[in-house]
C-alpha cells in the first residue's frame, strides 16, 4: 500500500462554460479523516463524484489506493465505498434486503455477509427495523442504513457526501461514533460537510469556494493562520451595534451568531476601540475568543484570499 490513500492532481470539472471544480490538488494519507468544507455550489459533490469514479473529469487525475479512479475504476470499486448525498437506497426494499443486495453485488461471501450484517445492524441500532421498508425510516435511520450498505464490503477508503445533512443532533453524534470506529479500524475517510462542528472533528480540512480550494490544513492551522483577533460582543440593540462595528476602522468582518457578534479586527487596543464605538448602547459582554472554523470560513468566504 502506498503512503498516500488519495492523490488528487489538478482535478478539473467543467460543464460547458460553468467551472464546477477548478484544478484541485490534494494528498490524503491513509487513516485520515479529511473534511471538504464549503457552501452549496462550492463543488463538494462534484469532487465526491469524481473521486468515486462516477463522473468523468474534464482534466487532471485522481488516484485512490494507487489506482486511477476513472481509468481503473473496475479494480477500485470493491475497495472503496461511496455514500451519495441524496438517499440512494431502494425505498421499496426492507432494511435487511438493502443490506443483502449491496453485499451480494459486491460479492461478499455468505459467512462474511452474515457477520457484517449482524455487526452493522447492532452498530447502527437498526436491528429492530430490519424488516421495515427503507422509505419508512426516519432521516437519521436512512443515513445510518446508507452507511451500513456502503460498509457491507468493508471498503478501505470511504467517501461520504454530506452524510449528516438533515439528520437530528442525536443521530449525528451516533453517526460520528460509527465513523470513529471505522477510523480505528484503519479506514480512510473523505467527507464533505456544511457543518463547522463536524469539520472540527477532521484531521485536516479543505475549504472550497466556487470550485476553488481556498485553504487546506488541520483545523488548528486554519484558525491560527487567520489574520487579526476575534472578539465576542453582546450588545443591545444588536443591529445598531453591528452597524457601528462594521464601520469601525481595522474591522475585517462582523458575523452574527444568535445574539452574539463575532468581530474580527486588527487594532492595537481592540477592546477599548470597540467599547468606544458602542458608546450609548448597552454593552452586555465583551471578550476575546479563539476563532472557530466557522470564523475562518466566513473570513475566507467574504472575499479574503489566503494570507
Amino acid at each position, binding site marked *: 500500500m502506498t503512503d498516500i490513500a488519495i492523490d488528487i492532481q489538478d482535478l478539473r470539472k467543467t460543464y460547458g462554460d460553468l467551472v464546477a471544480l477548478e484544478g484541485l490538488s490534494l494528498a490524503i494519507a491513509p487513516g485520515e479523516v479529511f473534511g471538504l468544507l464549503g457552501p452549496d455550489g462550492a463543488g463538494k459533490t462534484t469532487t465526491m463524484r469524481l473521486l*468515486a469514479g*462516477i*463522473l468523468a473529469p474534464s482534466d487532471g487525475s485522481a488516484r485512490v489506493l494507487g489506482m486511477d479512479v476513472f481509468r481503473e475504476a473496475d479494480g477500485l470499486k470493491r475497495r472503496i465505498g461511496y455514500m451519495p448525498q441524496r438517499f440512494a437506497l431502494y425505498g421499496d426494499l426492507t432494511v435487511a434486503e438493502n443490506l443483502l443486495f449491496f453485499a451480494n453485488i459486491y460479492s461478499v461471501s455468505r459467512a462474511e455477509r452474515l457477520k457484517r450484517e449482524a455487526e452493522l445492524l447492532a452498530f447502527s441500532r437498526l436491528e429492530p427495523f430490519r424488516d421495515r421498508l427503507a422509505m419508512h425510516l426516519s432521516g437519521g435511520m436512512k443515513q445510518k442504513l446508507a452507511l451500513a450498505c456502503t460498509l457491507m464490503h468493508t471498503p478501505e477508503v470511504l467517501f461520504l457526501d454530506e452524510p449528516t445533512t438533515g439528520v437530528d443532533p442525536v443521530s449525528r453524534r451516533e453517526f460520528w461514533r460509527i465513523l470513529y470506529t471505522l477510523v480505528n479500524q484503519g479506514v480512510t475517510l473523505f467527507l464533505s460537510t456544511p457543518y463547522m462542528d463536524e469539520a472540527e472533528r477532521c484531521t485536516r480540512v479543505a475549504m472550497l469556494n466556487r470550485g476553488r480550494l481556498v485553504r487546506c490544513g488541520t483545523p488548528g492551522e486554519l484558525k491560527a493562520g487567520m489574520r487579526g483577533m476575534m472578539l465576542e460582543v453582546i450588545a443591545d440593540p444588536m443591529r445598531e451595534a453591528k452597524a457601528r462595528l462594521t464601520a469601525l476602522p481595522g474591522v475585517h468582518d462582523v458575523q452574527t451568531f444568535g445574539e452574539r457578534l463575532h468581530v474580527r479586527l486588527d487594532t492595537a487596543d481592540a477592546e477599548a476601540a470597540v467599547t468606544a464605538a458602542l458608546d450609548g448602547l448597552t454593552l452586555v459582554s465583551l471578550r476575546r475568543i479563539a476563532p472557530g472554523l466557522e470564523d475562518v470560513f466566513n473570513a475566507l468566504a467574504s472575499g479574503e484570499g489566503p494570507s
Partner: protein
Amino acid sequence: MMLRTWMIMWKEFRQIARDPRMLTVVVALPTFMILLYGYAINLDVRDVRMAVYDQSRSRQSRELVDAFARSGYFHIIAYPEDDREVTALLDGGRARMVLIIPVRFARRLADGDTAPVQILVDGADSTTASTALGYVAGIVQEYSSRVALVTVYRAGLTMRGAWKPVENRTRYWYNPELRSNNFTIPGLIAVILMVLSALLTSVTVVRERERGTIEGLLVSPVRPMELMLGKLAPYVLIAFGDVLLVMAISSAVFHVPLVGSPALVLALAGIFVIAVLGIGLLISTVAPTQQLAMVAAVMATQLPTVLLSGFIFPISSMPKAIQLLSNILPATHFIRILRGIFLKGNDLAILWQPALVLAAIAVAMVLLSANRFRRTL
C-alpha cells in the same frame, strides 16, 4: 458474474411485487385491450341493411328476395314504393343497399329472356360495399342457375342431375368460414404484447437515474450487461405470463383455433417478448425521464405496429420503402408466426426465418442497451 445479475433480478422482482400499479398494467391492460379491440375490429360484413323495391310483385321476385333474406348477410329493413323513397333511404344511410326488381321481371323469366335487376350500393363505405357485392353476385348466380334448370326441365329436356357447364368450387383453406377474428386476433396478440412489453421495461433504468439509486449501482462492481440482463429477466417472465393470458382469452372468448403446436407458439412468443422488452430497455437507457420513456415506448410500438406490421393492412400493398420499415418491426415477423401456427399449423421448417429475425433483434437490443448505458452520471 452470475450472482450480480441474479441480485439485480431479485431486487427488481421485489420492487415489482410491491408496486400495486404493476399488477394493473400487467393484468388489466392486456385483458382490456384484447377484449376492446377484439370486439371492435371486426372485418366481417354481416347484416347489411338493405331495402327492396319490388315492382314485379310476383312469385319469382319473392323467391329472389327470399334468397337474399336467407343468406344471413343481409337484413331487409324496408320495402320502398317509389324512387323518391329509395333515394331517401340511401341518402339517410338507413339502407346500405337497395335491390330493385323491375315490373317485367317475372314476364321475362317466363319468356326465357335475361331479366335484369338493379342493385344500388352506398359506395361511401367502399370496404363494406365491395364485400356485400360479392355476396350479391353469389346469391343472384345461384338463383339464376336454378331458374335456368327449371326452365330447361319444363321444356322437356331432361338431364342427369343439375347440369352446369362449368362450376367453380372455391374452398377457403385455413379459415373455411372466413371469420375475420381468425385473421385479426393473432395480429392483435402481437400488437398488445408489443406495446405492453416495451412499456414494461421502458422505465426500469431511467427510474434508477431519477430516484438517484443509480449512484449506488455505478460505484458498485455491477457491469452494464449484468444490469441489463438482471433488469430484463423478471419482465421476460411477466410478459410471458401475458402471452398465456392473451392466448387464453383469444381461444376462450374469440374461439380462434390453434391448429399448430402450442409449445412452438410459446417458444417463439418468448423470443418475441425478449426482442420487444429489449427495445423498451434501450429506450430506458437513453431516455432522460420516466415520463418521456413511457411516451417513447408507446410511440415506437403502438402506431407502427398497428399500421405497418400486416396486422390489418397487407404489407404487399405498401410502397417498397415502407415495406422495409415494416420488416424491422418484431411484430411483423411475430404476426407471420402466429397466423402460421394458429391457422395453418406451420412448424419451424416453414417459420425458421421470422423466428431467426426475432432472435437477432432480441440479441441486438440487449447488446445495444448495454453499450448505450452510461457508466457515469
